[in-house]
Every structure is written in structure tokens, then in C-alpha cells.
């Protein structure tokens, strides 16, 4: 009985993984093709109908009536799935496992990105009586002469460089929490608290209250320490450093927790071997721990840089980019162009270029650091 049962199980497993080799009839394939063709026709017809029936094909009217397109896309997606099964049989069935994710990604990532490129090519101010109209690359030409955009970009370089200082602090804290200190668990939670706070709350509680010039405790302390006029946001570099300090305070715990996880995963034997070989504490860190931590460090830094490139909330709340654009970020500038000035086309163009720059920068960064990490760890 046992043997029989095992044989049955094997048969079931064989059947489960076996791809049907039954031939698919030409009629069934044709049905699949026709179904997909009809659904595609319906999708295109809906799009054309919507453009034709709105006022001069205006983008605003189109976006106001987005539902028919969504329904048409859903119908097309279902038809696409059925068509896959009809035309490809078992392989089509397997495709159904992936297809929903692909179609969803197209709907919420690929299409909006392409649509963003389209909007970036429009002269579209929400208050314009004439509505949007195509102006090619004019927005991109304009942004190359936009001193405010490039000023914000320069600030982003400063902010990104400052990530290295955040990393050093986070690493030190991670080492501290990885060692045998008293109340270690408490400190792990306590150090994480800033990361749990909303940057908006941090802006108000710290930037606009604790660091307030007249009555803020930080300003009072600074006066006691001899700084007669402790205005944290009045001078360009002081303001930049203050904003960076606030952002760092929020995000260092995030870096720290990633690094701590990396440290805890390191085999203790390596450090013990280094000690046996007579390595000092610094040598043990610099020549053993640090190189071994490079893969984790690079990952943590890249994630942190991505967060940093999106810095906006603290700046908007505390300085509005001032004084004189000293703390402005690309995101906070886009926010003003898009929101305060309703300049949708130009604002989108700014965002699109920024996206491209970020993608290029991160690609180069990942490749360079990846190579460097491999070389370093190999050397270690």
C-alpha cells in the first residue's frame, strides 16, 4: 500500500509539472487572435472616441473622463489573458501568473511615465484660458536656462555629499549598539525613534520651535555658549547645515539599522582571528570589519541617497528654499513651480529631467561601487 501510495504521488507530481503537448487547433488559435484584436480595437476606439468628444482633444477633459479608458483597459487585459490561453495553451496558462503584474506595472508605472513625458512637452498653465498646447522641447530648453533649477541641483550635490557624514555617524552608532553595552535593546529602540517621526513634525517641532531664534531652547543654549545671534536659518551655509542636520537626524537611524543588521551577520571568528594575529581595535575595524561591511554599506548608502534626492518637506516647511535659494532642493523647487504657479507642463519637464539625472547617476554609482566593492573584498 505504501509503495502504491508513493507511486500515486509521483504520478500526481509528474502530472502537475508536465506541460501539455496536445496540439492547439488552428481554430482555437484564430479565436484567440480575433479576441485580442477585437479588444485592442475597443481600447483604441475608446481612446479615439474620448479624444474626439472632448473639447478639442484637450488633456484636461481627457483626464476628467478617465474612467472609460480604465474600463477599456481592464476588458483588454482580460481578453489578453484569455487570448494567451487560447493561442498558447499550457504556456499561456503559465503566462497568466505573470501577466497581471505586468499589466498592473504598465498601468501605474510605464504609462504614467510616458504620459509624464507627453505632459512635459506641453505649454500647460492651469490658469491659461487657451488650455494646454504642444510646444515640443521648449520646456527643456527653458529649464537649461533656469538658474533656480540649477541652483537647487547644486544644493543637491551638497546634500548628497553630506550623506557620507551621516554614514560615518550611523556606522559609529551601529558599532556601539553591536557591542556589549548596558541597555543595548533600549538604545536600539530609542535611536530608531527619529526615523519613526514624520519629517513634517520634525520641521515644526525642531526647526520652527526648538531652533526658533527668540525662545527656542537650541537658540538659548547657543547664546549661553557664546553665539550672540543664533539664527540657524539666516545665513546660507548655516541654513544649509541646519537643514542637513535635521534631515540627518531623521535618517541616520535608518542607515544605522541597516548597518547594524550587517554587523550582526558578520562571523565573529574573523574578528577573533584578527585579535589572535595581534590586530589593534582600529586595525580590526579598518582592515577587517569595514571591508566585509562594504556590500551592506553600499546598499545602505544608495538607498539613503535615493531618499536624499527626494528631500523637500523639511525645506518647504522651514525655509521655503531660502535664504536666497541656499537650502532649495530640486523637489521643493518643482513643488513651487507646479503648485504655486500651476505651471503643469514646465513643472513636469523639471521632474522628468530630474528623473533621468537620478537614473543615470544611480546607474553609474551602482556600477562603480559594485566594482570597487568586489575589488576591495577580494583584496581583504
Amino acid at each position, binding site marked *: 500500500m505504501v509503495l502504491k501510495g508513493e507511486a500515486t504521488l509521483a504520478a500526481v507530481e509528474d502530472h502537475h509539472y508536465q506541460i501539455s503537448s496536445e496540439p492547439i487547433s488552428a481554430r482555437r488559435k484564430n479565436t484567440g487572435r480575433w479576441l485580442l484584436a477585437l479588444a485592442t480595437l475597443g481600447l483604441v476606439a475608446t481612446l479615439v472616441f474620448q479624444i474626439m468628444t472632448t473639447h478639442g482633444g484637450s488633456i484636461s477633459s481627457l483626464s476628467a473622463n478617465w474612467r472609460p479608458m480604465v474600463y477599456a483597459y481592464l476588458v483588454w487585459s482580460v481578453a489578453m489573458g484569455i487570448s494567451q490561453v487560447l493561442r498558447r495553451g499550457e504556456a499561456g496558462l503559465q503566462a497568466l501568473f505573470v501577466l497581471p503584474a505586468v499589466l498592473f506595472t504598465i498601468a501605474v508605472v510605464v504609462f504614467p511615465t510616458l504620459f509624464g513625458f507627453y505632459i512635459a512637452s506641453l505649454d500647460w498653465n*492651469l490658469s491659461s484660458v487657451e488650455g494646454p498646447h504642444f510646444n515640443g522641447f521648449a520646456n527643456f530648453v527653458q529649464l537649461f536656462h533656469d538658474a533656480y533649477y540649477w541652483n537647487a541641483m547644486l544644493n543637491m550635490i551638497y546634500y548628497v555629499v553630506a550623506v557620507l557624514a551621516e554614514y560615518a555617524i550611523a556606522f559609529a552608532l551601529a558599532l556601539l549598539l553591536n557591542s556589549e553595552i548596558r541597555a543595548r535593546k533600549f538604545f536600539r529602540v530609542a535611536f530608531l525613534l527619529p526615523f519613526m517621526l514624520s519629517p513634517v513634525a520634525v520641521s515644526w517641532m525642531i526647526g520652527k520651535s526648538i531652533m526658533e531664534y527668540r525662545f527656542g531652547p537650541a537658540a538659548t543654549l547657543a547664546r549661553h555658549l557664546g553665539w550672540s545671534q543664533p539664527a540657524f536659518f539666516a545665513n546660507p551655509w548655516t541654513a544649509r547645515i541646519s537643514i542637513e542636520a535635521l534631515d540627518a537626524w531623521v535618517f541616520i537611524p535608518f542607515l544605522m539599522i541597516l548597518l547594524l543588521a550587517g554587523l550582526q551577520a558578520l562571523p565573529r571568528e574573523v574578528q577573533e582571528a584578527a585579535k589572535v594575529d595581534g590586530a589593534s581595535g582600529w586595525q580590526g575595524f579598518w582592515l577587517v570589519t569595514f571591508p566585509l561591511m562594504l556590500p551592506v554599506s553600499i546598499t545602505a548608502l544608495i538607498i539613503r541617497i535615493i531618499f536624499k534626492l527626494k528631500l523637500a518637506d523639511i525645506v518647504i516647511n522651514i*525655509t521655503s528654499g531660502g535664504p*536666497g535659494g541656499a537650502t532649495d532642493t530640486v523637489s521643493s523647487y518643482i513643488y513651487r513651480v507646479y503648485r504655486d504657479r*500651476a505651471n503643469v507642463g514646465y513643472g513636469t519637464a523639471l521632474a522628468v529631467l530630474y528623473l533621468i539625472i537620478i537614473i543615470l547617476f544611480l546607474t553609474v554609482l551602482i556600477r562603480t561601487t559594485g566594482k570597487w566593492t568586489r575589488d576591495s573584498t577580494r583584496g581583504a
Partner: protein
Amino acid sequence: MRVEIYDRLMAMQRSRRQVLKGAAGAASIAALSSTGVLGSSLGALAAEMSPDEVALRKAIVQIPGVGKGSPTDADWQKVGEMCLGATKANVKEGEFKGVELTFMGLNNQNLHDFLFRGFLKPWEAYTGAKINWIDLAQADYNPRLQQSIATGTVDFDILEMGAPFEGDVGSKGLMSEMPDWVKQQIDFEDLVNYLKPPVGTWDGKQLRVTVDGDTHNFNYRSDYFTDENLAKAWKDEGHAGDWAVPTTWQKVQEVTKFLKGKKDPLTGGDAYGYLDAPKPWGGFGFYFLESRATAYAKYPGQKAWLFDVDTMKPRVNSPAFVRAIQDVIDALPSEPPNQINADPNETCFSQWLGGTGSMLAWWGDAGSNAKTSDSSIVGDVCAFSILPGSDDVYNSQTGKWEKLASGPNFAPNCAYLGWGVYVTKRVDGDSAKHKAAWSAAAHLGGKDLSLWTVMYPSGFQPYRNSHFIIPEWVNAGYDEGFIKSYLDSEGDSYNHPNAAVEPRIPGIFQYYSVAEDILANTFAGKMTAQEGADAIAAAWEKLTDQLGRDQQIKLYKASLGM
């Protein structure tokens, strides 16, 4: 009848019959009054009101009473309940049962919508209607409104909106026209003149129930200008004239520089003069440069002052505005050290009310909050006037600075023209909704209820002739000298023959927003005043082209009544 009462009535151009009616009313109110002050100038009050109305107004302004802490939701509901009489005259109980309306407004300083909710709660209970709320921060207001307009997704029936946006909604035909019964219910004729049409209208149709009047007035600290030590120092340092409240921007500059290094007579901390607001504030910060510039730029008899009427060529880089920008640059080193990072919200609600600085241009909130806000320490040392003038004024037509024979040029900045409650066209197809929406708007803009809103923290300033009756304010607990100074500064600004009135053109806040950005850089020393002004002018020209120059010219002329 006293001579001053008679003069006031004559000034208000009352008919003989109204004068007699006023005299009769005055007698009845005098009988109601237990204060000697109230009986001193009752003519104007009595001219319009029945004894019942007088009694109602007397009762509501004592909720909770000036100096008795900030009002709460319970107070707002109580006032709303007491002022339901006008609604009851036009709407039966439960008439709007099943009607649901959406109201979009602001949540600044926990006022605006917060008050409206309280005021409308008894209205909802009486009429049976239900109101859903969309609350927006000031800075979010413009983008939310513009997106709704541009994408055709107006999802609100009632809208709290400032007159500058009338160009945006009016040109798209999105608003419902006010019915006549609403005009009567709110006593439309009681509005001060500068808020009457064309303000609140589009294409000749009345669109808004006004709930606010706006102008920048000049707030100053009386203790500074009566301080003997400062007066002595002023003389000792060789300044011309007596130590007194500045009446021109030239003197404001001189006083601001003089006060650096002195001590504040109230707090004992550092003394400061004028408080500028250099940090951007969603476009609203530009009004504060305007307030410094109008006396230089608004030439008597010429309506336009921000653009050339026939071309929309900006005047923001004229010598008048450049001088105003330079004034800010020159004054900033004498202002508090962190001033470059102060927006208007900071200058008023943090610095001014907290006792920093001695001169401030702001909307009337600065004055009303001085007495009624829990955070204010300047209630007893705060006084008011219209904005300072200038010894000379720039004539854009001749391109020259001129000294007027009449003396300094004054041009109060009637910035923003006040908030109003508007009803959208969404309700026009449904008679019950239409009436309900307009009834709610009329309740909020009711004559008696408005008296309460202008006396207490609400975000709204006096906007009716009936708001200028000093005894009613005294009855609420205001000091007579304080309130006379406050109301005079407001009323004299509204009625000034050379007032600079806000252009109601589409996208006006885009002009202001881009100007703020450039000004912030100019104030930070990245460019000169002239370079900054030229950059603003260039950006404005570009924006006008983007929005449609011909259309903007047409609407600019309309907004100036040309």
C-alpha cells in the same frame, strides 16, 4: 442729538426719514445700555436696527467677551444659533432634509472652516441639510482650486474664496448667481463701498456673499513712541522732528535704523522697528512688498499701478518698486537677525503678537488678535493708522518723481479684497440644493453674525458700515481708544480716494509667487534691487504671454472698472 452723530449720519448720506428713524432707535438703545460710553454716539447704530436686533448684537458680542480667552466651538455654535433669525424668515424648519452639500474652505490658524462648522451646525439642525467639509491650508488653497477648475472636477457646492480668484472662476462660468432674496437677507447695501460691484461680480452677475474686508493697515507700538528714553535718544542722535509715529516710509526707514541697539520698552529685549516678511508665503508674501510700494507707485488719479493698462507691461521694475525693494534691503540689517527667514505668518503671529518689533503692515488680523488672542502680549500697547505715505510719488506717465502740493502721497494697499462665500453652478439644476447652498452662504455672511466674526479671531476684518459702530465694540470689552484707532485705520483705508485695489485677473497668484522667489534672492544679496525687479518683470511678461495677453488686458481693465 449730538452734533457728531448728526455729522456721521450726514456723512453716510442718510435720508431725513432715516435720521429720524435713527434718532428713535438711539433712544431705545440708550435705554438698553448700561454703559455711559454706549450712549455717546448711537445715531449710526440706531439708524439701521430694531431694538431686537440691537439686543441680539449686544448679546452675541459678549460671547465669550473680549479678554476672556479665545472663543471655542461651543461659542461659535451659540453665536450661530442666536443669529438664525434671518434664515428662519426665508426657510421653513426641515425644508432641506436630505440635501447634502460640500463646502471647501480654509483651516488657517484653526479658524475659517472651524468657525463655519460651528456657525452652520445650528443651521443644519434647523434646515435638515448636511454639510461635508474640505479643509485646506492657505498654501494649498490656490493649487487645489486651480486643479479643480482646469480638470473640470469641481467637487464642492459652496466655496470660501478671495476676490482675486474671481477671474479664475468667473471667466470659466463656474459660479451660481446670487438670488435677490439672499441680497435682502444679508443686507447687501450695508457693505463698505469698495467691496461693492464690480468686486464680487463677473459679467454683471453678483457671485459672492462677502464675509471679510481686506486692507493692509499700519500697526505700531504706542509704548515705543511715547517712551521718554527713546525720545531723548532720538534728539541726542540729531534726528529731525519729534520722536513720533512715522507717517511716511522715509521716516519708517529712519526709525527702523535708529532703533537698532535700543531696548524694547515692554519686554526689555532688543528693540526693533519695521518688520519685513522676506520669506515666500505661497504668493501672499508679495502683498507686503506692495504695501511698501503703493505710496511710491500709485499716483493720485491713475487707477493702474501694477501693470500698464493697455499692454500689461509690468511696473514692478519701475523706480517706485525698485525703491521699495531697496528699502527692504536697507532695513533688513536693522531687523531681527533671523528676519530673512520670516514669512508674514511669522511676523504677525509670532513676532508682533509676541512683542518683537514696533511697526508692521498686515491685514486687520494683527489688530483683532492683539486683543483677543491668548498668545498676544501687545494688546494694551498696540495702535493703528493707514499705511505710511511717501514724500514723493512716481508718475508712470511722465517717468518722474513728483512732490505733491497736498503733501505726502498715501495709497493704502487694499490687498486681497477679502474672503467671500460663493456657490458653484453644480447646485443650479436642483432647486432644493440651490436654495440650501445660498441659505448657508447667507447665514455665514449675515449682518449680525458678521459683527461677531470681525470682533473675535476669525480671519475676517470689518467689511460693513455697521461694523464701524464703536459703542458695540466697547460693549464687547474693547478699549475705546484702541478700537477707534483700529477701525479708523481700516475704514480710512477702504474709503481712501487713492487706495490701491487688487487686480482680479486670472493667475494673479502665479505672478506673486514667481515674484516672491526672485525677491527672496534679491533680499539675500544675490542681485541688486533693480536686477531683481527686472527679473520679476521678465517673468511676469512671460507669464502674461502664457496666460493670454489680450485676455489679461481685458480682465485687468475690467477689474479696475475701466
